């Protein structure tokens, strides 16, 4: 489903590659933690999957489509099969919870009827029913992240990419978010989550890919954060 072959990413400004000859494969329905210290290349990994940026060398395949050489107008179609969530939520401040979620569907031309039906559904699923008309600043951090997850999931993506989604949240709230991501994963959606929260990784016991200086130094199914920690 997702395949990286000898992927290297060099940013123009820095001599050290952000990703260094990364080869890996992620199957449909997997839950994968991407771990490593700050600057190890986790965000770059996710950005390349979204084709936000192109690898300097190597090939990337997502859902059977090779991203290298994919034309610009095919990229939106690729992204409609992926959802993404970030540490800073990235909600639109002047729109309500329901409008934030609906926005993701409006801009890809989903019919009104569909939007009216699926937005309340997904809000209920993430535990925000009753808060549909709140503005983002009227919500707690955990609730805001739930809105972002609802927005990422509302179009039923094949893959959910989460870049440190619990980075701004306290452990208890993070636990709720992880339960939600697990639930999404159970619907068959592949989840790839970058994090350096070892509590979460240790308690979930899922596949762990560890990056260090842009290289994969560990790839372990049912792994923990630090070996021998």
């Amino acid at each position, binding site marked *: 489903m997702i395949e990286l072959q000898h992927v290297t990413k060099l940013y123009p400004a820095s001599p050290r590659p952000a990703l260094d000859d990364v080869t890996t494969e992620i199957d449909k329905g997997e839950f994968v933690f991407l771990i490593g210290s700050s600057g190890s290349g986790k965000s770059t990994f996710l950005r390349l999957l*979204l084709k936000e940026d192109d690898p300097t060398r190597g090939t990337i395949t997502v859902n059977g489509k090779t991203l290298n050489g994919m034309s*610009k107008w095919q990229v939106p179609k690729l*992204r*409609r099969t992926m*959802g993404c969530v970030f540490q800073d939520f990235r909600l639109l*401040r002047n729109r309500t919870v329901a409008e934030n979620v609906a*926005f993701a569907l*409006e801009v890809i*031309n989903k019919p009104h009827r569909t939007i009216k039906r699926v937005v309340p559904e997904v809000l209920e699923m993430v535990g925000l029913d009753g808060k549909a008309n709140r503005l983002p600043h009227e919500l707690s951090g955990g609730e805001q992240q739930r809105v972002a997850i609802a927005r990422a999931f509302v179009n039923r993506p094949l893959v959910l990419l989460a870049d440190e989604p619990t980075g701004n949240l306290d452990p208890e709230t993070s636990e709720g978010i992880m339960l939600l991501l697990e639930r999404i994963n159970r619907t068959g959606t592949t989840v790839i989550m970058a994090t350096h929260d070892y509590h979460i990784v240790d308690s979930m016991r899922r596949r762990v890919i560890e990056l260090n200086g842009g290289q994969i130094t560990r790839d372990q199914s049912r792994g923990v954060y630090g070996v021998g920690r």
Partner: protein
Amino acid sequence: MRVNFVLSEVATGLRRNLTMTVAMILTTAISLGLMGTGLLIAGMISDMKEIYYDKVQVSIFLADDVTDEQRSAIETQLADSPEVATYLYESKEEAYERFRQQFSQQPELVENTPPDALPESFRVELVNPERYEVIAAEFPNGQNGVDQVRDEGDFLDRLFSLLNGARNATIAVAVVQALAALLLISNTIQLAAFNRRNETNIMRLVGASRWYTQLPFILEAALAGLIGAMLAVGGLVLTKVLFVDKTLAGPIKAGIIPPVDWSAIATISPIIAGAGVGLAAVAAYVTLRLYVRL
């Protein structure tokens, strides 16, 4: 395409950079107004050419003491000349009448001119207007009742080169203004894109098409272009009503200057609107391609 969504985005965008939007609209309006003026002058020039060049190319003014024999000899010579297409005799009275009409707005001038002050003349249209010299040679000045032969074409050439110059200058200023307008449009669109970067970032990530992401910006520019064009047309209408129709009423009535018709303004208005909308949209599109990541 969700029309409401796009339109509300456009309205928000225009409101959010009000000063830039106003500057962009005004510059566009001035540029388009000058372009329209240039087009009107161009139309006027071709109208005037029809009025003048077709009528008279050479005037043969007769001396005050011309005899009847000399006059009919000249007429015969004109009738027989292969160079002459048509000719027209104008008596002193007819010349005075025409003069009175032409300068009806300046009654002092008419009053101070005695009715017999204007010479009688033959007004000659040549087969080939360039062959003025040949006719001039046939009727030497100050001989056989001829006072002087004048090449009206020469005067008209100078008049028209002046008018052409005015048209070119107007269009040149319009082009410079258009450049300023394009830069302002580009700047406004960059600002609009910056203001809406959160929205466009999310649109990009959820897979909105590039077209959908760009459209609000392009429409924003196109709308500004349209408003600018409407202001420009309004300016032309005001110029016609307040300046051309009032100040130039005399010469227009006398047929010296062709009037600026409503139909002429109606003809160039869609051109102005098209140019305004088209240029603004293209400027926005190019700006988005060059400077903004969508």
